[in-house]
């Protein structure tokens, strides 16, 4: 069992690392995130103008803008690299983690939490501002309850994200370079996770399949929960799907990790 003090220390180190390049961080939050949200939104704005419709996939124009900002934030939280696990394996740097009195995957989750703390602040502030000052028509479905449940789901989604990505990265035990697989997965999350497009805007059958994939549960699902578009039975169904994926991926991840460790020579290239 890792002591809370050790956990706090890891988080603090990661947070300080993240803050050491402040200009980068500002550009990342200010430009990259908002640019990503804007680029997703501007396409749909053009569709709104072209067709004269009031809603697409159940979202008004303003709601869709908030959807994309939120989705971009949550996607960015997921995108924080896991510390290049496969690179650790490739270079033999994994050895130092193996002698630490902490589970490697747990260490990665804690590190992620530390790094992402700084990104939760603008996300929270933006949501509160939207809740307080937003037009009641656009925020009618969003409540304090949906916000709190959504943030909880977001955290669960990120744990799922760490497990999913680390399983892929563990393939580094067998192959020298697997970074392209992680990027491929990242791209799939971008589309099937609902960052470019709300799943409701996809053809029904495809959207329904995507709803049960971890890609959506990591990003699109928390976004829709925060905005109050998912509640009641759909919320429970989503949470159960998350739990099922958690058990499945964790089992797979552990199996891959154990097998991989048997092959690991502790020598880097």
């Amino acid at each position, binding site marked *: 069992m890792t002591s809370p003090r050790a956990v706090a220390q890891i988080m603090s180190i990661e947070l300080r690392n993240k803050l050491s*390049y402040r200009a980068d961080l*500002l550009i990342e939050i200010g*430009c*990259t995130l908002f640019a990503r949200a804007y680029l997703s939104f501007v396409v749909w704005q053009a569709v709104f103008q072209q067709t004269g419709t009031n809603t697409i996939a159940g979202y008004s124009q303003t709601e869709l803008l908030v959807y994309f900002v939120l989705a971009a934030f949550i996607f960015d939280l997921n995108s924080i690299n896991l510390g290049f696990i496969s690179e650790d394996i490739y270079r033999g740097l994994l050895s130092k983690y193996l002698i630490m009195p902490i589970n490697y995957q747990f260490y990665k989750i804690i590190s992620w939490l530390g790094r992402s703390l700084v990104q939760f602040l603008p996300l929270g502030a933006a949501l509160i501002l939207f809740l307080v000052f937003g037009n009641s028509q656009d925020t009618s479905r969003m409540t304090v309850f949906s916000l709190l449940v959504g943030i909880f789901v977001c955290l669960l989604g990120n744990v799922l994200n760490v497990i999913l990505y680390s399983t892929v990265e563990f393939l580094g035990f067998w*192959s*020298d370079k697997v970074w392209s697989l992680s990027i491929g997965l990242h791209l799939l999350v971008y*589309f099937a996770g609902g960052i470019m497009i709300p799943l409701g*805007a996809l053809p029904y059958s495809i959207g329904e399949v995507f709803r049960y994939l971890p890609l959506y549960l990591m990003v699109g699902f928390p976004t829709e929960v925060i905005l109050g578009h998912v509640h009641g039975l759909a919320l429970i169904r989503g949470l159960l799907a998350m739990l099922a994926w958690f058990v499945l991926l964790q089992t797979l991840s552990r199996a891959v990790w154990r097998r991989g460790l048997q092959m690991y020579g502790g020598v880097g290239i």
Partner: protein
Amino acid sequence: MKVLRYLRLYASLVRFAASTAIVFRADFWCRILMDIAYYATMIGFFAAVFQHTDTLGGFSVPQARVFVAMFLVLDSFHMTVYGTGVYSILQLVRKGDMDYYLLRPVSTLFLVTLREFSLASLLNLSIGLWLLYSAIASYPQQLQPSSIIYGLFLLLNGTFLFYILRVLFIVPVFWTISGDGIMGMFYALRDAAERPHRIYPRVLRIVLMTIVPFALMASVPAELMFRPFEWSSFLLICAVTLCSFLMMLVVWKRALRAYGSASS
């Protein structure tokens, strides 16, 4: 003579890349999968958008097909020829490894940016070219051969412009050391180029066509391909490309002067 020497050198780099691809077989297939995921994302996105509208940014479905294929060709060319090389500049500067390249008796820019030829992406480039061919061939109205040649010329210019912009966005690392933020900005602008430029507000559109000319890479060429030839558009594209190229050379020279050779 100098050109021949560089061509010979480049041929050696490609041969070396081929042997590396044979050694790292899993990486070879993973890269192909990665690019396929990207293609699927792009095509799926536009297919989904066109479920809700008939035109987007002035492009009908067949025109959007040509535009998407053009962008995929552009991106796969970038991944094949210079993507990995330019990206490696980040690490070379951070670790102080640029020294090895500065000492070589050839252009540092040439060597650093073009040394990592990707054989896996070459396969994807051929898929992109096939997509472009089928998009043009299935276009409902007959396109004039001169329009196709003009479009392809502009696409070629777009690939050159992409290279210039990639370099221009990575050189700040010589001063800032951590280039993550600026790279994030580059990717955001690159994503902007993935969409038809007519969907952007006027001011942003002008910025994307002049100051950071990402729209001139695929969107504007695709649009001009379907319109009668205009000297003004053609000259604007040539002038912007030339200015960007000269700026890249100047900034690169200054960046090398600022390089401190220290690792971090």
